[in-house]
Every structure is written in C-alpha cells, then in structure tokens.
C-alpha cells in the first residue's frame, strides 16, 4: 500500500474537482448526439486525466507519474483524437449518433448507475486514503457510464469511444487509488489502446466495404444467417 498523502486541501479539491469533471464528461457522452462532439469530449477527458495525474504526481512526488501525465497527454489528447477525427473524415461518418435506447431513458439509466456505483463504492471508500476517498465511486460510475454508452449506441465508432472512455475511467481510478500502475503496465495498456484503435480503424474500412454501412445491426443479421 502506498503511504497516505500529505493533507493538502487545495490539491485535494483540485483532484475531486477533476474527478467530478470526468464523471460529468462521461455523462455528457450519453447525452450528446454529434460524433465530432463525442471525440472532443474524449479529448477533454484526456486533458482532465493529464491534470489529475499531474496533481497526484506533485502531491506524492512520484516522478514516474510525471511521465504518465506526459504519455496521457500525448496519447489521449493529441494522438487518439487525431486518429478518431481522421477516421471520421475518411469514413465520412457525419451527423448524429444513432441510439438504440432513446437519449432521455439512457440518461435516467445513467443516473441510476451513478447511484448504484456510489452505493457500491461507499464501504470501499471508507478504507481508502484521503485523496481517493469518494473518488473510487466516481471512477466506477464513469466506467459504467462509458459501458452504458457502448451498449446503447448503434454505430461502431461510438463503441470505440465508449471503450476508450472506459479505459480513461480505469486509468483515473488507478492513479488515485494506488498512484498508478507500474510504468511498464501503463505503457503496455497505452500501446494496447493505440493498437486497438488502429485495428478498429482497419476493421471499419473492411466492414464498410463488405456491408456498405457501419451499423451494427447488419452484423447481427450475418451472425444469424
């Protein structure tokens, strides 16, 4: 276990603030309909992660977290959004997200998930060190909200963004609960995500060539045939 952080109210507030902003961005993803806004929100999540990693790095004076922050910034704010935007352009995915469940219902469901996660995380939070108290619930809620977005949206690209959002939430929880995973693991995960995105991208082209659409329901019918 890591030693408890020195109490520093301002930094605490900052991290809590960033955590709520992350949760809010996960929630906003459920409500937004435009693809480009989704990617922008994803980039914003990257910025929030970078900042919170920096804050924890400075608080705990663990230098490897500084590198983490740098990597987060490079991957999640610059590289991945750039790839996603490029995909959007190349695939000519425009306009609106298609929802399987209507948006208000998804949002109400999202609220229920937040309540559920907070309740679930309640007893765990009691054990945690000062900084992460309460943030476990926030991380869990963000994760489940991203998952919900993956379930409730139809287009394949939204699923990728949902997947990336889940990874963001996990990363946030890891940073705050244990000051991050070992550097190797983090790097590995980061590259995994990157490669995953590439693979997804290639898949998209393949899928579109085969089905002339990126709608998941076409894949459903093939699997049944």
């Amino acid at each position, binding site marked *: 276990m890591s030693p408890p952080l020195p109490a520093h109210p*301002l930094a605490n*507030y900052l991290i809590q603030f960033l*955590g*709520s902003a992350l949760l809010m961005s996960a929630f906003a993803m459920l*409500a937004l309909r435009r693809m480009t806004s989704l990617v922008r929100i994803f980039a914003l999540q990257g910025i929030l992660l970078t900042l919170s990693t920096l804050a924890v790095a400075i608080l705990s004076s663990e230098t490897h977290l500084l590198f983490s922050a740098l990597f987060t910034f490079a991957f999640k704010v610059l590289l991945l959004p750039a790839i996603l935007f490029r995909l959007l352009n190349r695939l000519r995915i425009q306009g609106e997200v298609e929802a399987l469940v209507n948006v208000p219902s998804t949002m109400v469901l999202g609220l229920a998930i*937040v309540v559920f996660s907070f309740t679930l995380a309640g007893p765990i939070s009691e054990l945690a060190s000062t900084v992460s108290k309460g943030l476990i*619930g*926030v991380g869990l809620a963000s994760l489940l909200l991203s998952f919900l977005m993956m379930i409730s949206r139809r287009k394949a690209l939204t699923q990728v963004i949902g997947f990336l959002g889940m990874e963001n939430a996990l990363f946030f929880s890891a940073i705050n609960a244990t000051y991050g995973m070992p550097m190797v693991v983090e790097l590995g995960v980061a590259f995994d995500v990157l490669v995953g995105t590439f693979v997804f991208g290639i898949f998209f082209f393949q899928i579109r060539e085969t089905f002339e659409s990126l709608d998941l329901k076409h894949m459903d019918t093939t699997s049944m045939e």
Partner: protein
Amino acid sequence: MAVEGAQLVLALVAAPILTGWIGVCRAVLSNRSPAGLLQPWRDLVRLFRKETIIPEGTSFLFRAVPFLVFAALLSCVLFVPFLVTDPPLAPVADAVVLVGLFSLARMLMAFGAMDAGTPFGDLGGRREMMVGFLAEPATLMILFTASLWSRSTSLPAILHSLLGAAAPFHPSLLFALLAFILILLAENGRLPIDNPSTHLELTMIHEAMLLEYSGPLLAMMEWGSQIKLLLYLLIGTDFFLPAGLPSSLSPGALGAGLLFLSAKLLMAGAGLALIETLFAKLRIFRVPEFTALAYLLATMGFLIHFVLEV
C-alpha cells in the same frame, strides 16, 4: 426601505441595458454593427407610446396578464441578494418560492397567450409549458445542490455558506453550474431553445405567446422578460461567483459591490452572447432532452456532494 427601493429601481433600469449589452456582444461577434446599449430602452419607450390593440373575443385575463406577470417577476427582485448579502425582505421568500414565482409568471403568460385563441398563441403556450415542465424541476435541483452547504434554501444563508467556504469551488457546484447554464438558456428563450431575435418563425416559443400583445401591454411583457433574465444572472452570480458582494451597508462597500456586480453581469452577458453565437437552434423535440439533461446533471451534483464533500 432604502435598500428595497434601490433594488427595484436598479433592476428596472438595468434589465433592458443588460439585454442591450447582450445584443451588442452578439452583434460584435457576428460582425454586425451594434445597435447600442440603450436599444431595448428605446424600444420600450416606443412601445409605451403606441396604441393598445386588444384582439376580439378575449377576456379580462388577456389584459391583466402583462401586469400580473410583471408584478410577480418584479417581486422576485426584492428577494434576491445582489446589492447586499442580506436584503431586508429576503426572509419572505426562499429559493423555492422564487422558482414558484417564476412558474406563476410562466403559467399566467401561457393563459394570456391562449386567451387570444389563435394557433400561434396556443402553440406558444404549449411550448412554453413544455420547456417549463423540466426546466422548473431542474432549477429547483440546482438550488437544492447549492443549498446543501447551508442546509437551508434561504438565499442569504446559501450565500454566506458559499462565501465562508474554505474551498474555492465545490465539485457539486460544477454540475450545478452546467445545469444552470442550460436552464438559463431554456428559461429565458435564448438560442439553442428559442430565438430571441425572431418575430415570426414556426419554431418560436416566447414570441408566439406575445404575438397578439401590442403597445404598452407588450412593453410590460418585454420588460418583465428582461427582468427575468437579469434575475437569472443575478441568482447565477450569487451561487457560482459570490465574491465581492458586500454584507454591510456602508457607501464604500456598496460602491465596490456595485462595481463587482456590473463586472460580473457584463461577463455573464458576454458569455451568454458567445453561447448564442456558437450554437444553432435545437429541434423543438430535442428541447425536453436538453432540459432533462439539466435536471439530471443537477441531481448528480446533489449526489456528488454526499460522495465527495461530506
């Protein structure tokens, strides 16, 4: 008495100027030459000098509504702290009563619109109530979130607890702020929801309700709406930017407070104009989604408070 009088006069004078300021900002942002800060005032004076035309077949309610709405909205000015932290009449009405008074004004306006018996009036009344049925609960949830620190919905109590807080900004208020901005736009007929500069569009809401009003009656309605916008911004600054509000009645403190207040209002107005320039109007059926988002965000703020801040 002095404070109440000052609050009333200030609100009456400043509300059209604030609308003028937003107009100026919008014009500058979209490369037009602005009409000037005083344009709403000029419009009001012109309307007051015009003839009143009463549509045939309306009842007394049609004529009474503008004054009732105006009185209801003006009374709110007395309860919102903006000159000092504790206006003498603030205990009369807490935040919930304030929302109730806004709702009263909304309902009366819808009655006035429906009394004309025209398709546009009915359409406006129906849409206004449609915006309201989620915007009002969202407003209350925002107020509740802000009141969590003081455990009281009295505005001065909320203000004191926020001014005295150790933290610069509470995470729960982040949610409330976003929800508040959404509601501010929805409740005041601003752009993603309704276009304030339109006069005849099938998608209009506020203007559709006012379509049959003319002359002084229309002026009262317009002035009332301007006061409502001012009130929303004042409540917003109370909750999210309370710094600089004087708690004493000394002239120096009051003057400094007034300066702070003007700066905050100018900033908020410019921000509003920016939002309105950036966003396009939503389809009318997206409006409940928009307000539902605000409602749920405010509710999440409430939950976040218990998880992160207690």
